């Protein structure tokens, strides 16, 4: 088998693997842009391999040159002259024939919090320094901590679970009708990446409190400081980490 054929098989095989094996059998579909990015890398890998040595490059281009100039390959040439435009036609058709598919949300991954954390108009402190006032009970008074977690659980199930789900995975009853989807607290990239003060801000201010930068946010999250007390919000935050097992981000000592 020629080097060219091997490279072609790798290229097509990689696309099939990403599109149908990873994006179908193993997991859910991968967005086209991500597949394109991976395919670009695979093309680079192939180009690197074939061009690093002159002998490999000659071997790679040999069947291409033969197809272009060798009289024995006249049939191949004719087939390719028909096949290549057909493939391009099919690709173009597949792009323009699909139904209107609006782009996803252009919002930033995470909103940037303000420098100061507030509850209604009361300044609690700087976002960097504020800690959950009940967190220390985890070590100092486990019974009191348990009581706060229980209260957080109650508040969550009375207010939050309709969207965020009873498993805290963002799959609540209303979730299917919301875009963007409610936060999935079971995701390892959510709770461990943020301080508790960040979560307090997101709960307290909701969608309308999101920053001007990075819009449109389109968040359906209500302004919970209008309905919950400060302590109730902190208790819900305790419940989130207690239920999922993930710990909120802390910075420890600076050095």
């Amino acid at each position, binding site marked *: 088998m020629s080097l060219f054929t091997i490279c072609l098989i790798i290229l097509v095989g990689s696309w099939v693997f990403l599109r149908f094996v990873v994006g179908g059998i*193993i997991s*859910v579909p991968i967005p*086209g*842009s991500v597949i394109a990015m991976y395919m670009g890398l695979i093309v680079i890998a192939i180009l690197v*391999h074939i061009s690093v040595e002159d002998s490999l490059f000659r071997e790679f281009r040999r069947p291409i040159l033969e197809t272009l100039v060798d009289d024995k390959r006249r049939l191949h040439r004719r087939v390719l002259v028909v096949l290549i435009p057909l493939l391009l036609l099919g690709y173009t058709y597949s792009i323009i024939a699909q139904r209107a598919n609006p782009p996803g949300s252009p*919002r930033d991954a995470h909103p940037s919090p303000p*420098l100061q954390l507030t509850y209604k108009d009361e300044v609690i402190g700087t*976002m960097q320094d504020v800690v959950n006032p009940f967190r220390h009970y985890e070590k100092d008074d486990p019974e009191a901590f348990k009581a706060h977690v229980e209260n957080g659980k109650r508040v969550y199930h009375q207010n939050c679970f309709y969207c965020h789900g009873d498993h805290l995975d963002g799959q609540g009853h209303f979730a299917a009708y919301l875009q963007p*989807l409610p936060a999935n607290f079971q995701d390892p990239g959510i709770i461990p990446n943020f301080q508790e003060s960040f979560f307090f801000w997101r709960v307290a201010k909701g969608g309308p409190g999101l920053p001007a930068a990075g819009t449109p946010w389109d968040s359906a999250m209500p302004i919970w400081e209008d309905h919950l007390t400060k302590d109730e919000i902190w208790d819900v935050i305790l419940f989130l980490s207690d239920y999922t097992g993930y710990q909120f981000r802390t910075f420890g000592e600076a050095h």
Partner: protein
Amino acid sequence: MKISKKRLYLILGCVLVFYAVLAIAPAFAQDMTEAEYRPFPVIGSRTAAWIAAQLHLLFGSFILGVPMFAVIIEFIGWKTKDERYDRMAQEFIKLCMGAFSTTALLGGVLVFILIWCYPKVMSKLSGIFGPTMIFYVILFFGETFTLYLYSYGWDKMQGRHKGWHLFLGVLLNVWGTAIMFVSNSWLTYQTSPATQHGIISETRKKSWMDEQLAADPSLTPETVMEGVTDHTMIPLHNEATGEFMATVWDAVNNFTWMPVNIHRLIGNIAFGGSIVAAYAAFRFLVAKTKEDKAHYDWMGYTGNFIALCGLIPLPFAGYWLGREIYLFNNTMGINMMGSLFSWLFIIQAVMIGVLFIGANYYLWSGMGRIDGAEIYARYRPYMIIAIIVCVAIWMTPRTLSKISTASELSAMGGANHPHLGFFGLMTAKNTAVNIVILTTFLSFLFYRRSGKTPTASWRKVGNIAISSIFFFAVVAIVVIGIVGFAVPTDFRVNTLTPWQVVIALVAMFAVTVLDVFMYRRAQTSGTIKWGGMTDRSQYVLILLAITFTSLMGLMGYARSGLREQWHVFGVMPDTSPDAFTPPLSEAVNMVAIIMVIFFALVGFIFWLGLWGEKKKQAAAPVEAEVAMESDD
């Protein structure tokens, strides 16, 4: 009427000057009394300052980076008595000399623009940093005269004076590094005007305590100090009035000063090496004689080697800087990695991927000109796969909402892919980068071994030991990476990630020691045919220099943009019409324009050097057609 070419150019020149005068004319109509901002004509103040600052930084990076390795190469030449090293080091410094005056010129342009367009900001900065500016001038004089002595005295200070010449080289680097540290203090202060309680001056400790007591009369000095440790961040300004209350040293030694110093110091080496390699590549491509080809092939290899030496520790230094930014201000950290600038880091991953793929490609191409290197070619496909998979992980975004359609988001069940989403987290990316670094090191090891046969009796055991070190290092890095998904972030950032770095560094050090001893008396089975590199590999060197330049421009945009609408973060707001953060697309365009200007200027300076050389050669033609061969 027939117009001569000369006259046509004259008319065109006059028209251009006329338009330029028209364009800047409004500037003369401006009120030159005390103003907060003055607009720069046509392109605006921010764009003007951006271009001048970035060009100054690129040239500065080059002239600070090159002497660092020039003096080491000169030292190697002195110790090994191989004059080729000495000649190459001298050639590096000649390039530096050409760029030196341009750096100073651009620095002057930047200062003029800043004083003109941002008088109030400059007034505040000079009020705080005045003493350091005097120190900067002294350092600049020191560097200038040392560089002149070092360069012009090169031929004179050979033989018994060589030691003194090397001392001048070291002194040049001391001046250069000190200059960079001083100017870094100004810009890092703008980002992080705070420092830790343990290292802040007594003056500021006292004024800070007074501020706390004045803000809340119920407090006592004892209650204020509750929970305050040596690491507690203390702002340098009065939090109520914004007045600067600390000492000059507190402002210099601000929170992000040292991480930026280290990051830039290493970056300068990598950047300087890559520009030198690109210069050598260009000279290789246009070389007419075998001797020239051989010389510039060797120079290109050395430049790329230096760039690699800088590139390998650079991600670690960058990670430390990122960590410090998070520690200084969580909002700034989230803006950087999870919000405003998060997509910039995907572009950064692509560009660093290009750097690593390109550097490896160059090494693999180089093995083609060494007899006996063929035995390592069979490992190459696996190394390509390892690098590509790692780069793919590094490039995978965490949140895909901006690059997915609504139906794709719906199919994924959210903005994160349930499996590929893991690649978007830092623990996966850190694992990938460490493996890319180890693979690149392996490429270099193969290159070093090519054409040599070890004679040490323990070579089999040695090879098993080296393979085991690589194997266990990769396993350990991967296992730590997987564990990183399940531990608190604080533990991952402060313990697991440093351990990954330590494992990679220890593995590279241990392998180097073993390999050096194993190949100490190795038989040479094949020589390096200098000048035998492919033209393709030379274009890769040029690509690497372009990528380094773009990367520096883009990351500079992130470092500066992180302040958002502040001249001095949290202290002095930007109230100019440019107070918004430019979008990524605008930044990319700006960086591309700056890169083109930079390479045009560099090309002109190098061309001037080439021109002078041609004149010399024309005066004394030398026929040299012998291919240079070397054993290393």
